[in-house]
């Protein structure tokens, strides 16, 4: 009888622990996309790879003052990054990389198969003059690279959400942002997000897919 008094609660507890562990693991599984994405940056890339998002129809104002409809760029592979021109770290390097991609993908750009797009998430400061200066000091090769800001500030959250970009003010007049090169296919869907310094990878990705 005394033994039973000890064993039964232990067995009951063990029995109850099984659904608890199962529930806990299921919750962890769901929260991490099947133990694959523990940070929101990985989750963003995974979500884009699994379910390519359609570009929103948003008007952009380019460095030369002209207006470009993002949706009108369909039919080409787009390499897109997000920048702000006052940035002195990543973005200046990002700019140089885009200028180099402009040169390396020159043939495809000429053929209208590839287009580079840099979008500012600081439209209040980045007017066409600032955008043009950014493009110039990055070493712009002349064609195939649009540096632009959203015409309407209200379009910015839509753009950032589509690309999964997050810009956090750093308290020093700048931003910390998850810089990356996003690739948009000719159907206008964001199909891949690569590291911000993965220039070679971006180039290979596009070259493997454009029609020869």
């Amino acid at each position, binding site marked *: 009888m005394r033994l039973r008094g000890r064993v039964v*609660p232990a067995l009951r507890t063990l029995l109850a*622990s099984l659904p*608890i*562990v199962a*529930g806990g693991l299921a919750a962890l599984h769901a929260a991490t996309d099947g133990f694959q994405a523990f*940070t929101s940056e*990985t989750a963003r890339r995974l979500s884009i790879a699994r379910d390519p998002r359609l570009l929103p129809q948003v008007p952009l104002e380019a460095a030369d003052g002209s207006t470009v409809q993002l949706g009108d760029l369909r039919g080409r592979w787009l390499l897109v990054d997000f920048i702000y021109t006052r940035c002195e770290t990543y973005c200046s390097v990002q700019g140089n990389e885009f200028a180099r991609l402009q040169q390396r993908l020159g043939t495809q750009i000429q053929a209208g198969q590839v287009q580079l797009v840099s979008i500012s998430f600081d439209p209040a400061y980045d007017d066409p003059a600032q955008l043009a200066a950014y493009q110039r000091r990055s070493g712009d090769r002349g064609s195939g690279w649009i540096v632009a800001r959203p015409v309407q500030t209200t379009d910015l959250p839509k753009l950032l959400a589509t690309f999964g970009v997050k810009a956090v003010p750093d308290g020093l007049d700048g931003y*910390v942002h*998850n810089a990356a090169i996003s690739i948009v296919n000719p159907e206008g869907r964001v199909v891949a997000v690569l590291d911000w310094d993965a220039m070679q990878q971006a180039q290979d990705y596009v070259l493997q897919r454009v029609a020869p």
Partner: protein
Amino acid sequence: MKNGARTKAGLAALLWLGLALPPARALLEASMTRQMLIQMPLLALVGWWLAAAVPAVWRDAINRWNAHGINGFLIASLTGMLWMVPRMLDEALDLPWVEVAKFTSMPLLIGLPLALSWPRAGFVLRAAVLVEAIATAFRLAWLYLASPVRLCSSYLLDDQQRLGQGLLVLGLTLCVVLGWKLMWGHVRVDGA
């Protein structure tokens, strides 16, 4: 309900409401350090106080399935693991339902089960829980101090490193408390 229990439950409700106020949320969630070292522990404290208000009948029913408090610790650690996933901190800011999940699971699935289990646990189990808590604080501290990349897109790197330092201090404090209790404190060794 006894008077003491009523006071505790009232305090718990007040604390929870206070934390849920938009200015309090904005203040505590603006920094990764404040969210993890102040907001989340306070939410768990709400649940800990709430345990006093659990009617004796329910408590007896729970106890029958909770020998030595094992299942309570299990629920609390699994829930804790979930909230240690960096993504969850970002999503609590972006998705309202994740924020609601945080405000309910921290008290009900961490604080409350811990309070119901701790008195039932024997010396060895309590020691295991405490040592594991210390180890977790050190592991997370090391991760946040050593990581060159931001683990949460919503927070800055220096915030993340400050959190690492905070966790280091937390782990050390727990070590000192545990050491002090073992050396000079009153430790119950017989077990429940």
